[in-house]
């Protein structure tokens, strides 16, 4: 299982480009900039910069096939937006895998 973690980051109004630049400079890979910014980065980076921790969880991928997917669930209690980013972003949301409704 790869230890790269994706997240959607909500920029402060009018701050998309600056937020993306700052995240990139911190080592995150910016994948898409829209109303939210899609980024990915090594878990170690998330832990170091946002103070978030992860644990492995299982989730049903499809009831039809009975398959499960493994993913890292972020524990948000410890998440802290660093001071450098406080003016640029308002929220961080870590994705969980969807279920396919076969």
């Amino acid at each position, binding site marked *: 299982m790869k230890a790269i973690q994706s997240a*959607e980051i909500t920029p402060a109004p009018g701050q998309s480009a600056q937020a993306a630049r700052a995240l990139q400079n911190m080592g995150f890979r910016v*994948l898409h900039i*829209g109303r939210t910014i*899609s980024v990915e980065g090594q878990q170690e980076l998330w832990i170091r910069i946002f103070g978030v921790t992860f644990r492995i969880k299982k989730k049903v991928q499809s*009831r*039809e096939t009975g398959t499960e997917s493994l993913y890292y669930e972020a524990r948000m209690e410890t998440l802290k937006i660093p001071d450098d980013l406080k003016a640029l972003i308002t929220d961080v949301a870590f994705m969980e895998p969807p279920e*396919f*409704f*076969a």
Partner: protein
Amino acid sequence: MMAKKRDSREKQEMIVFEAALRSAAPEVSMFAKNSVLNLDTIDHFKPPKGAGRKAALVLQELGFRVRHVGTYSVSGEGPRRLWEKVFHTQVEMRTQPRSKAHPDAGKISYWSHIANTPFRIPPALEPFVERAYPQLPPTFFESPLPPRVKYHHLRVPDDVAMVCRSHIVHQQGVTGKGVLVAMPDTGFYKHPFYLWHGYNYQATLSPDAIRVERDEYGHGTAEAANIFANAPDIDFIGVKMGGNATLAFKTASDLYPAVMTNSWGWDLPGAVLPNFLKPLEAAVIEAVRDRGIVVCFSAGNGHYGFPGQMPDVIAVGGVYAYEELSGWDFKMEASNYASSFDSQIYPGRHVPDVCGLVGMKPQAVYIMLPLEPGCTIDTALGGTGYPNKDETSKTDGWTVISGTSAASPQVAGVCALLKQVVPGLSPAVVKAILKASARDVKLGQSYQGQPAGEGHDGATGAGLVDGYAAYQLARSVAIRDLNTVPPPS
């Protein structure tokens, strides 16, 4: 264990070959430069009577195993060392991809004659056999035609088009031409089904996904066939998901398709939308309201599907159509495999709006669909034991499956027909047309137990999609520019 290993090694050391028989006329050879083999000339190359049997006996005496004696050649096999000894030659191991179109499907090794290496037919075989060649492995192509199974099921495209009543619209020349439809899902394998039907079936990667040519799970490849059943001439783009489904949705939305279909989601029975889904919620609203994209989502198969429950999307549930007619239409009932519910997150929002075709419990084995051979779904549902298994092979590239995952792309196909007829239709008007034209389903109940009944009901919403009735409504809708229409006094 040791014996198994030895068997495997021996199998690897075997050469399978064809020994071509000499023709009756000594001066005639099928290998001669100017030889042409066709229906008119084939008799010239016929060996004398009994030559095949004689050659087979000699081959057997030499130690080979004869598998078949044909008119023009004998098929056999034998160990590599025997081959090299008998024919005074050498072979070498070669490796090639199983499929050039799908290099990730692995490689296959085989023994091959080395060019310009001596090769001599032994005297005992000389009178009967002109040449002998190790046989190279073929490339296997999954069939564009589905296998036959014995229970009631629907096939794409014809059965699904007929029951959704889109085939009549196609006869009017409305086939989805010029309409871009996007679908984020597990992947989009280039199954010959798509090629042979001449569909414009393209795939791309979400920025965090890899291997555009593969669909390891099989879901996207299978469900996409439902769209083409109702809209065969659309331009289709599948977006293969990586770990972030929101990113895949946004990637598809950035292409500004006219229609998007999504056969996935999260099970959210409660009143709170988790924070991690807020960005997706925003992306869906942006797609519908700012970009004018008609967005279809599956309601779920017993799930309280999100984003299917968002008010902005077309939430698609399921109806089962039997083989027999009941009056002018098929006998139908609400699928007990498909979801229906009232959203706790969005008060006043009922799911579904409208339905596509979905099978019944236990597994909704109902629609024959193509997928990557040997993928997760092919393996999981393949095998005997209907209705829990689909009675197809686990590696044939076909499965019989359904669920609201199939229903959403069916309805999206009908949306594409409407967008061809009146490109300016807003997502809200498309939804209104689908609901106004749906066929009432009065029997059965949904997975959650809500009953179907006269008129709009809990289980099926407005009912089963009706492509032709929707088309008849849409073609008369005139898009008015609000700036030129005087406001009501």
